[in-house]
């Protein structure tokens, strides 16, 4: 039964790690703006420059047809 002391110690220790993680998140301002990041992640990545070179007038015409 003395395993209980060990287990409780473990659980509290793990909980403390999460508390510390929360403190870190809080301190670095991750909770300050809860809306903008949700939009930011939807922005397209940088488009490769190569794409522009490939796309010439002839291609565009084909695409239209």
């Amino acid at each position, binding site marked *: 039964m003395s395993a*209980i002391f060990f287990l409780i110690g473990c659980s509290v220790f793990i909980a*403390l790690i999460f*508390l510390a993680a929360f403190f870190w998140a*809080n301190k670095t301002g991750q909770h*300050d703006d809860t809306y903008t990041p949700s*939009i*930011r992640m*939807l922005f397209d990545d*940088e*488009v490769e420059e190569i794409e522009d070179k490939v796309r010439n007038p002839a291609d565009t015409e084909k695409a239209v047809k």
Partner: protein
Amino acid sequence: MQQYYRYNTYPGKKKAERSGRYEYLDEAAIADKLVDFKNEEVTVVTFYIPAIHCSSCIWLLEHLYKLNTAVVRSQSDFMKKQVNVTFKHGELSLRDLVALLENIGYAPKITLQDVIKSARKFSQRGLVAKIAVAGFCFGNSMMLSFPEYFGMAAFEAKYATFFGWMNFAFTLPVLLYSGRDYFTSAWHSLRQRQLNLDVPLALGIAVLFARTAWEVFSGSGPGFSDTLCGLVFFLLVGRWVQQRTYHHISFERDYRSYFPVAVTHIVAGVMKPIPLADIRVGDRLLVRNGEIVPADAILLKGNADIDFSFVTGESEPVRKVLGEVIYAGGRQLGEAIELEVMKTVSQSYLTRLWNNEAFKPHERKFRTFSNVVSRYFTLALLTIAVSAMSYWFFQGNSAKAWGAFTAVLIIGCPCALALSGPFTLSAALSIFDRNRFYVKNTAAIEQLAAIDCLVFDKTGTISSPNAARMHFDGELTADELAMAVSVAQNSSHPLSRALVSWGGSVTPMRVSGFREVTGKGIEAIVAGHDVRLGGGAFVGVRHADNAAQGSRVYVAIDGQVKGCLVASQPWRPQLAGVMDSLATDYELHLVSGDHDRDKEQLRAVFPRKSDLLFNRLPIEKLEYIRTLQAAGKEVCMFGDGLNDAGALKQANLGVAVSDDINNFSPGCDAVLDGRSFALLPRFFAFAKAVRKVIHMSFGISLMYNAVGLSFAVMGTMSPLFAAVLMPLSTVTIISFTTVATRLYAVKKQLINNVS
């Protein structure tokens, strides 16, 4: 998105550039106050940009580095409408950055308030951290307390001591870190010889801790650590909700936000921007179109048409001639003018008005319900605790005496009471918000319910500047009317357009030689006749009524004055209805700075016993409010403009009525959007309903207290009982207030659906 801007290198709409408008940002003294951080290489600055409204805005603002390589990083905060920009100041000046933002359509709003940003920073981080600690301890101590509540076998007794010590360890951070604010608040309150609700709360927390410590140290029981952690946790969550509800109304504006940050100073013909505070008597200033006159000054050059709507609420520009004094707060419309400063900013008319004792930035002392109650509550609680203790001492049972004493203080801890007010009022606050009635704080809602006398200002308050009603003094033949309308059609001036719409459908005639003298009038030749429309002086009226200038257009044909079009005060559409429904419960009065040409019309709208006062100076308005208050009235003042500021502040509740929410007057307790004027009776009724909800929830919380106390005084309260009762009462109160407030809002038709 990326592609859109790739194909379209030039943004669709280009803002008109105003050269030199941001020159003041080159001044190191001003720039230094705006930036957040600066080192040798980069500068970090945060702008408030009202134009942010969609995800494209975020995209554009976060890709500033593509528009200018000197921008290292830009991050936007959508909810606060802010952008945080890091840029290399070696390659890009602050002024150029602002100009860049303006060019892409996101002109930052820079006011003195940004420069004086001391009180602006608002952060809940500290509170969130405290909640996290309290929640962590609450959860863990709850877990450790369960075995005790479910009962333990004899052989498990050794764990009980261990759990007790663990629990005690968890209470320490809650007491010392999370609950610290309650102790400081209680201490401050006691120092001011007052008893606020934090006193019994702090007392309850302290006693909980003391008893837990004693039980754990002596090994006599499990203590109340989970109750303590839970109590602090719930209280902090309540406080968090309360703060969050209204921090978005950044009400910390004062008159300074009306003034531009810097002004253009002319020294020996050279223009130079200087900070507002550096203006000296005798300085020569240049004020451009749309800029605000920062200090009382004499007009030296140019045609001044000053819009004093900040000061008086009158939106018609006032014409000033050379050598005349222009008071601070007016906005120049038209060409640039040159002024000589007569008084420095701090001594100006407005600031003087401000510094009148009634305007002193003192903490408004509303007597809120919970403040009143808490005083009696604390005393009653202490009385019960002491009498229970003395009873048991008298019985010779000292252990039970201490038990009863502490139990009373613990169970009597007004947790539910402390939450009922904030929860109800912040719910009400957001409902008012939704109806475009912006109340400064929760205490003002309680004040709203206590009002029994309403005082209205006229211009901009019960009259709306948007829709004008007109009539014509004098006589015009159909031909003459056609001529006047034909000429007026050529001008974009509001009064010209008013004349056109008043004239109705007439066949337009050929107009030649059209000439518009800005701020004076228009002139043209129609069918061989010389037609002049405009102010009295322009058309040649000798005895022009100066007071009415700006609201009337004279019509003269061939030098002969035919009459004038009078734009009468346009009342808000539902004015009569509002006054009718308010008249039954409230005393209504009118105090106006204007002359009494509308007295008859208003007499019909206001109840018979109302005072209708005209030609009042700001200080007289203030005196009038004071007189009413001396007669025992709880006065609510409705007004706009800075010259009502005194009266607004003196009144028990000052409500600024504004058609442009950004122009509201400081010193008020609430801002009412002009469009919601018709809802006024409902607002008052709802405020009263809210007060009823608070009273009811207070009743419920007292019932819980009575049940708990009856066990407590017997000395038979178990920790389990406390641990169940206290969260239970809290949850009941929170759900009751939330539901009841919503129900009342639906009933008063302030929200449409129950969802």
